[in-house]
């Protein structure tokens, strides 16, 4: 049988006030007084009678007011003075206690204030930066900390401020984010901010030019905005389209790619600062596809003209087969470089094209010398005015360049190559000299003597004069660095140039032929010239002259000075055999090594031969991917995508765009070296 616990009748049940702040101290003992403590937490038992009589206004008598739960109206009634007739209730005074609700209220405030105080103390303490830092920096940025101490001010304006200054700063978020962005750019870019923050670090101007290749969406470029699905639309593509629609196609806004859009910092020592998904890459591109296997365009072929070194693989094939030379005889992979490098001439070509009595330039350079300084035949009335053995019928390229830069002779040189002889041939020196007055011939000869005399001065002076003359003549077309290199190699003839100069000045009558086998300079008194014979492959003088030739070739359409065109023609003719491999007609400067040429001109590709070759025997065979082509313009067929798909399969880590492509078209570490940061990409 269940005993009823509680009488719910309001006449027999006291009224509980759990919302009040204080409760009777006897509650826990099960004997609370019916009155409870007062509002201030004091026991009010002594103040209470059983009831508080009230005065009936109609009768003017006091009436009993005892609550029903205490027995109701008593028979005796109140005293005449209005006080209760019954004795005061016998209760022991108590120490009132907080109600449950009041305790909760106090704890809440305690926690609130405690948290506030803790945060304030932390903000004022020395651990402020480490505690409020959102996390350790990426290893690449660890050097930003000063001796392992956090140095937030390196990137953040608020980094050396207090909380009081943070609050107003929080309302200027755009301004200080700009400052942070500038800090990123100052370390990582050598370009202006517009370029740095443009998609793929390309300004809109450049982007329009490369739009066909990149297929970037751009509101400013009307032609590149048509999205083309290269594969049937997948769920991912639908999701991407929905994202575009929901966010109002954000690429239509003024395109500024903030660094933090991709590079998330403060995610710990082991976190990657960058993780791009395929969808993120495709969100800006007009050509969309599901993955490398499903939709990625085939690779294009490379023209031979795009190569740094023009090498005819087809022509050499029979020799490779005869001598059983593998590809790695000439090519090698490098740990630090994603490209396959070409070994040096000495390591690769010289085995066959040895430079003994003959050389690889059809014996031309080894057998024949290059006339660098030569003297034209000029007849004077006075026989002592000009060396009688000067017999050259035309000027060397170097002599034209030097004379074109000399104030006294530049007009003569100009007219020489502007004039035509009786047969209509331009630049006939003999014809021009015959037509000149004695006075002009003397001035022309004295200019040659002056140049030679200047160049035979001590090296520093000679170098300065040579640079000045060459800069005057070719400075508009050839970079300063190339002219400096050329000048350096020209004055390296030293003593022989001095002797030659004395010949020219008529101070030296001895008939001397001298070949300096160490420097390559040859003094030929019979032909009255200072010639040069290349010592080894990669000769510095020939290299400087070829670079000059390459830069002049780049400006063929701009050059309106016939003497400069004559220089270019002369050099092209001289280096015809060199150009068979070193392409000086297509680009300047010439890439002497294939390592320096980018097969990916915009710099978005990323490929490591080393990694691929080491994956297995199949890929170790170069011919697995590089198949010789029958096309006369291409040594090799375009690499087929099917070679890659077995590893770069869908839903694998290798199916990511970023496996083979990078966002920035420059080498991060180069920029980082500016501030001594060893960056990892």
């Amino acid at each position: 049988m269940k005993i009823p616990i509680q009488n719910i009748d309001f006449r027999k049940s006291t009224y509980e006030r759990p919302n009040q702040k204080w409760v009777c101290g006897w509650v826990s003992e099960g004997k609370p007084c019916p009155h409870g403590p007062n509002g201030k937490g004091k026991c009010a038992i002594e103040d209470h009678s059983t009831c508080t009589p009230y005065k009936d206004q109609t009768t003017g008598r006091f009436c009993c007011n005892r609550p029903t739960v205490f027995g109701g109206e008593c028979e005796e009634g109140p005293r005449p003075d209005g006080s209760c007739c019954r004795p005061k209730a016998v209760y022991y005074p108590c120490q009132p206690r907080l109600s449950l609700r009041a305790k909760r209220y106090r704890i809440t405030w305690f926690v609130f204030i405690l948290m506030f105080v803790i945060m304030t103390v932390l903000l004022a303490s020395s651990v402020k930066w480490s505690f409020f830092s959102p996390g350790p920096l990426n290893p690449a940025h660890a050097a930003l900390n000063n001796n392992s101490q956090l140095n937030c001010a390196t990137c953040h304006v608020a980094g050396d401020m207090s909380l009081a200054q943070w609050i107003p700063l929080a309302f200027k978020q755009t301004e200080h984010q700009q400052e942070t962005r500038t800090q990123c750019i100052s370390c990582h870019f050598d370009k202006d901010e517009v370029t740095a923050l443009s998609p793929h670090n390309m300004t809109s101007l450049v982007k329009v030019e490369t739009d066909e290749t990149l297929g970037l969406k751009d509101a400013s470029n009307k032609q590149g905005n048509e999205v083309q699905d290269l594969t049937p639309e997948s769920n991912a593509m639908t999701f991407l389209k929905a994202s575009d629609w929901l966010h109002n196609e954000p690429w239509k806004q003024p395109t500024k790619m903030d660094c933090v859009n991709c590079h998330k910092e403060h995610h710990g020592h082991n976190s990657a600062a960058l993780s791009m998904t395929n969808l993120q890459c495709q969100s800006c591109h007009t050509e969309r596809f599901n993955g490398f296997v499903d939709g990625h365009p085939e690779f294009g072929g490379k023209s031979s003209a795009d190569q740094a070194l023009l090498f005819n693989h087809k022509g050499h094939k029979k020799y490779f087969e005869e001598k059983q030379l593998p590809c790695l005889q000439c090519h090698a992979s490098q740990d630090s470089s994603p490209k396959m490098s070409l070994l040096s001439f000495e390591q690769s070509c010289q085995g066959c094209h040895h430079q003994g009595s003959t050389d690889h330039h059809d014996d031309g350079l080894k057998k024949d010398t290059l006339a660098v300084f030569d003297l034209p035949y000029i007849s004077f009335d006075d026989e002592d005015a000009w060396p009688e053995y000067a017999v050259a019928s035309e000027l060397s390229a170097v002599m034209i360049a030097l004379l074109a830069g000399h104030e006294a002779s530049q007009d003569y040189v100009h007219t020489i190559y502007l004039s035509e002889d009786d047969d209509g041939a331009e630049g006939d020196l003999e014809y021009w000299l015959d037509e000149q007055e004695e006075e002009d011939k003397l001035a022309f000869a004295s200019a040659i003597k002056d140049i030679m005399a200047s160049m035979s001065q001590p090296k520093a002076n000679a170098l300065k004069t040579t640079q000045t003359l060459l800069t005057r003549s070719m400075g508009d077309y050839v970079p300063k660095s190339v002219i400096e290199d050329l000048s350096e190699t020209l004055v390296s003839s030293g003593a022989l140039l001095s002797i030659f100069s004395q010949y020219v000045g008529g101070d030296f009558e001895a008939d001397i032929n001298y070949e300096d086998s160490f420097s390559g300079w040859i003094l030929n008194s019979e032909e009255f010239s200072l010639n040069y014979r290349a010592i080894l492959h990669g000769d510095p003088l020939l290299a400087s002259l070829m670079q000059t030739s390459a830069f002049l070739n780049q400006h063929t359409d701009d050059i309106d000075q016939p003497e400069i065109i004559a220089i270019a023609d002369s050099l092209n003719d001289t280096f015809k055999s060199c150009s068979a491999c070193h392409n000086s007609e297509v680009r300047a400067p010439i890439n002497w090594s294939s390592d320096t040429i980018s097969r990916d001109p915009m710099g978005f590709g990323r490929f490591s031969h080393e990694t691929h070759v080491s994956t297995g025997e199949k890929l170790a065979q170069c011919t697995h991917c590089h198949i010789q082509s029958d096309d006369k313009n291409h040594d090799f067929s375009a690499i087929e995508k099917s070679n890659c798909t077995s590893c770069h399969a869908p839903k694998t880590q290798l199916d990511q765009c970023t496996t083979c492509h990078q966002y920035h078209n420059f080498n991060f570490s180069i920029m980082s070296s500016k501030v001594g940061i060893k960056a990892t990409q």
Partner: protein
Amino acid sequence: MAKSISELSARRARLQMSLVIAGLLALLYFSTYDPLLLANNYDTGWILFGLFVLLATYNARKKLPYPPLFKSSTWLQFHIYAGSFSGLLFLIHTGFSFPTGGFDNVLYWNVFALILSGFVGLLLSRTLPKRLTDIGQEVIYERIPQFRLQCLEEADQLVLSITEQYSNRAIQDYYRATLRRYLSQSPNCFELFFSSDRQSQVIVQDISNLFRYLRKEEIVVAKQLQDIVNLRADLDNHYCYQHVLKAWLFLHIPLTFSVLVLLALHIVLVYAF
């Protein structure tokens, strides 16, 4: 009555379904930021902050009888479902990953504890009332100590009444050794909450075992003592369940205000840095 319960169930099902749909939509919507390299942290952060402030005002609403801004039960429904939604939003905001910074960790685990305590409270408020109903009687929490004392006093009276009449001391011995200690001690809420009222059942069984030694009149008293033990067990259950229903708020509400302090600082940090 049956109809109103079915309506309540239908309403709950509708609201739960709405919550699931809203959660999925939010998950889908905020995941559309990522492919476009947009950050959803600012949007989710402000929504989350607004929700927290709104949820915190429920406590204030309970204290304000005026103005009559919807019924408290409506606020509670909103509090439950908006709180659950904010849990999902919190995970989206944090990118479903743990923070690495000191302050971020404090904030993260505070919010986590707040949301978790909310769910625990929801679970308790959905399960304990059923247990209370199963007891069969309603008791005001604040009066339980008084009833406990009444039980003890009644038991004392019963034992005294038979002591004066009979010389058999089986009941008295058992009462003095075991029963009185049980009736005068505070309840062990942990044991009651996670196991059962096993102790009272053992005592009831012990008293039954004494029947063979008792006279008929004494058995009547012994049975009355058993009723008192059962009553005390009901009181203890009431006390524990009601205490737990009130105690979880000691965690939930202070955490709310702690989170509000941390959130204010978090916003300043985010915008200043």
